[in-house]
Each structure stands twice: as C-alpha cells, then as structure tokens.
C-alpha cells in the first residue's frame, strides 16, 4: 500500500465529480494501477462501514425513543388504567341505579351504527377495459373487502391523487374506509363533498353513509333529517333508512 493515498480524486470519482478527460485518465489508471484499484475498493468499504455505523448509532437513539413513546407509555397507561378502573368500579357501585334509570331507553348510537354499517359492494372488480390495471387499486380493494379499513384508506388516499378514470369511486370507497376505521369526522367530510356534486354517481349512496357517520358521531338531529330525506325520495337504502329512523325515534 502506498504511504500517501490520493483520496481526493478517489472521492471525486466515486461521488461523480470527475468529468471528461479527468474521468478517462482516472479510469485508465484504475486498469493499470492495482494499488489504486485496491485503494478504491478499500475506500468503498470504509464508506459502507461508516454508513452502517451511522445507521446503528441512529437505531440506538430510536430504541430509546421507542421506549419513551411506546413501551414506557404502555406501562404507565396500564397503571393508570388500573387506577381508573378501580375508581370507575367504585363509582358504578354508588351511582349504578341512577345511571341505569337515566340512560335506559335512549338510543344506543354505537349499536345502531354497527347494526347498519355494511360495506358498499366492490363494483370495480367487474370493470371493463375502460379501467386500467392498477396494483395499488387491487390491493386497496382487497383490504377494503377484508374490512381492513386502515390499510385500505392509506392506499385510497394515495390513489386519489392519481389520474385514474374512476376518481368518484375511489373517493367514495375512501370515505367508507374512513368510516370503517372509526374516523366518522373524515368520512362525513368526504360524503358531504360527494353529495354536493350533483353529477356524482355515488351521491345517493353517500347520503346513507353520511347518515351513518352522523349516528357514529352521536348527532341524531342531523342523522334524522338525512334519513327522512332518503325515505321521502325513496333513495338508495330507503327501507333500511325507515327502520333506522324508527329506532332513532
């Protein structure tokens, strides 16, 4: 190994800084000078080692953050939950009869929502040639049909910005995915946009899902008003809307 290794040109060469004749000369030297070739190889290994060292150092920091944000918090949360549970049980023993009388007969919004929420069928799988093959869309629909709404919504979000000729459908399925993953605020925003677009083919279906979003949000006044509209206009799912309206009354 040479005593003084010419590192600057090696670095320039590896970082793409050599051009024209300088590059040609260097490449020629690499072919004829085995010591230079060996030094370039060593240089590459040193850079890779430093990169791995950096990765490992950063992972050490991340492990600490993981402990603070996830593991540590879980222990704290469990302790706090135990305390809260103890307090809650005491509270229930004292005030149970009163609470039962107060809430009995009130609509159970979560139950109503769960009884009525079903996904809208996959109409895209019967698509013709007008809709191009799209791996991400297939995967999103697969998650959607398996009720894995969190993964589905992420992919529908990504698809939304693409130029697929089925944008209306993607936004609609995205709204249902938000609702399914327990995010009725976001879902209702999407459904309101669909309803406001008079040319949107999913407008009527969106009314039903918006009503379900309102129920999930415990907003019975808005839900009733929308359900009454659905019944009155004999819109999509009007029979179910009628039954749901009765339950809410």
């Amino acid at each position, binding site marked *: *190994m040479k005593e003084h*290794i010419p*590192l*600057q040109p090696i*670095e320039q060469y590896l970082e793409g800084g050599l051009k024209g004749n300088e590059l040609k000369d260097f490449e020629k030297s690499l072919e004829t000078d085995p010591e230079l070739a060996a*030094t370039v190889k*060593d*240089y590459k*290994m*040193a*850079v*890779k*080692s*430093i*990169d*791995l*060292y*950096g*990765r*490992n*150092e*950063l*992972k050490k*920091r*991340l*492990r600490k*953050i*993981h402990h*603070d*944000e*996830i593991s540590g918090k879980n222990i704290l949360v469990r302790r706090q939950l135990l305390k809260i549970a103890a307090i809650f049980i005491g509270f229930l023993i004292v005030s149970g009869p009163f609470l039962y009388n107060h809430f009995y007969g009130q609509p159970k919004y979560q139950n109503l929502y769960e009884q009525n929420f079903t996904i809208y069928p996959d109409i895209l799988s019967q698509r013709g040639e007008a809709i191009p093959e799209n*791996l991400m869309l297939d*995967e999103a629909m697969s998650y959607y049909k398996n009720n*894995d709404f*969190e*993964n589905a919504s*992420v*992919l529908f*979000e*990504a698809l939304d*910005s693409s130029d697929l000729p089925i944008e209306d459908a993607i936004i609609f399925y995205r709204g249902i995915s938000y609702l399914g993953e327990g995010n009725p605020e976001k879902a209702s925003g999407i459904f309101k946009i669909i309803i406001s677009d008079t040319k949107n083919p999913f407008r009527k279906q969106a009314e039903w899902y918006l009503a379900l979003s309102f129920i999930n949000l415990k907003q019975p006044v808005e839900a009733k008003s929308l359900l009454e509209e659905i019944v009155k206009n004999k819109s999509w799912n009007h029979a179910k809307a009628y039954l749901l309206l009765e339950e809410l009354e």
Partner: protein
Amino acid sequence: MNLLYSDRKIIEALQSTDDHKTDKAFRMLYQTYFRMAVQFVKSNSGEDDDAEDVFQDVLVSFYQNVRKGVFKGDSAIKTYLYAMIRNQWLVKLKKNKRSVNMEEPERAAESRHVLQRDSTSGELQRMVEGMLDLVSERCREVLKLYYFDNLSMTEIASRAGFDNENSAKTQKYKCMQRLIKLMAEKPELKEHLYELLAADE
C-alpha cells in the same frame, strides 16, 4: 402537491443539524405512524417485535432519504412510510423464507422506494464498530456526519467546532486516510468485513 403542515415541520426538523430537533421529528413520526407499522406487520405473519425492527429501519432510511433530497415531500409522509414499511417487511419475509399470502417480493422490489439493507446483523454490527474503533471518536463523528448524515463541510465545521470549512475538509481526509491505513494493517479483520458486507448486499 401541497404539503401538510405537520409533514413540512417533520421534513424541516430532519434536515436540521440539531439532534434535539431530529429527535422531536422521530417522536412525532412514532406517535403518528408506529401503529400503522404494527397493524401491517401483524396482519402479514409478523409480531410486535418485527414491527419495531421494521419501523426503526424504515425511519433510518427515511431520515437518509430526506437528508439526501431523495424525499422532498412529493407525496404525503404517511403514504411514503407505508410503502417503505410494506417493502421492508416483504424483504424480511423473503429473507426468513416465511410464506405469506400476498404479492411476491419481486413485485414489491419494482417500487421506487429503495430501502437500505438491514444492518442489525450482530456480527456485522460488531465488526463495523470494531473497525471504526480504530480511529478517534472525533474522526468517527466527522466521518459519520459527512457520509451518513450527509452534512455539508460548512455544517460539519459548525457542528464539530472547526475554525472553518477547509479545516473540516482537511480533517475529514486525514480521518479517512487513517481509517483506510489502519484497515490495511489488519488484513484479517478487513477480509472478514468484506465477506460480511458482501453477504449483506
């Protein structure tokens, strides 16, 4: 694309030379997206520990992609991280030869999100640390700031307390020269590291 306020903040923090700011960004990423990693990994034949590993590897690669300008916020961080988590986990599954009912890793490799290899192999980690132990702590820091964190020489000078950019540059060359010379003096260590790095390719 308009960046979300929180996405912009995270990118800015990861581009900073201040460890407190980058730590804050990592905490925010943990709080927001770790659950997404757990859910994906666990619904595809993995466990909580796998999700932790995958998520940390993804954050390291994401950090480097931000610092090298590979990720500039052209898509939402959530979408980008999801793709990285998915690809990283597929690569790990392939390595472990575990069967899973999803698309083949070859197809995932077509994605534009290129992940760095997992560097958690214990032996490789020890070898790399052993090799870097050959140079001084200050040298390790300067080399890491340049090659891993992708800091400019001006930023390195400011962060490591050099008088100016040129002093930092000279020091970096000296450190690299020293590392390569020390490696040459330990041919067995060097050869073994070559083999491990090749296996990690």
